[in-house]
């Protein structure tokens, strides 16, 4: 599973992308977030406030309950500010 971070979330995490292999019981976005936070610093505090974290799976907006799979590209980022 490939994870991407953008804007201030990228700065907090310290990398723009990484490949991870969460255990099989990580089945959705909420589970993936919990698993990432459990890895400790900087992940444990990077995703605050939770309501500000958007997620996309394979470049399509997703929700906390959207399933995630091994080959997915999962992106986390703050609310968008283009235009």
């Amino acid at each position, binding site marked *: 599973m490939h994870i991407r971070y953008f*804007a201030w979330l990228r700065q907090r995490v310290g990398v723009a992308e990484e490949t991870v292999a969460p255990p099989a019981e990580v089945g959705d976005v909420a589970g993936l977030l919990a698993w990432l936070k459990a890895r400790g610093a900087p992940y444990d505090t990077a995703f605050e406030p939770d309501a500000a974290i958007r997620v996309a799976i394979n*470049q399509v*907006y*997703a929700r906390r309950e959207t399933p995630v799979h091994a080959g997915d590209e999962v992106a986390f*980022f*703050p*609310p968008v500010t*283009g235009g």
Partner: protein
Amino acid sequence: MSVSVQEADFDVAAEIQAVTAGRCDIGGLAVFIGLVRDLAERADGDPPGSMTLEHYPGMTERQIEEIEAEANVRWPLLATRVVHRVGRLEPGDRIVLVIAASAHRAAAFDACQFLIDWLKTRAPFWKLEQAGDAPGRWVDARASDEDAAARWQGSPPTAG
């Protein structure tokens, strides 16, 4: 329908020409150009601020294409065009161009405003403001942009 995400500036006249060339069915063309304003909170004597636009390559184009497709479902459009810049921009620089063409002006205006309103709340761009050597400040999303996007009837709730 056409989208470009690019570092280079765009040529407004050439973009309009590409939309209108060789056709006689367009009655109204609505165009929006977004520009970098000087930092609002800058104190006198502070250096002028620059802006850096980050985006999510691939998803950005895909989101804008979906927004264009939605506009074409809602209004009888003859052409739409979106160009959005990324990278470092200075005050006064152009950021975004939206063109909507229709037989009549009301549809062109509505679609153009819809495109920029939805782009602002759905297309994955992020603005970093920087003045001189100071650390950058990520621009906050604005509630007024959410309100602008929400007023288009039938818009789905904000993703995420």
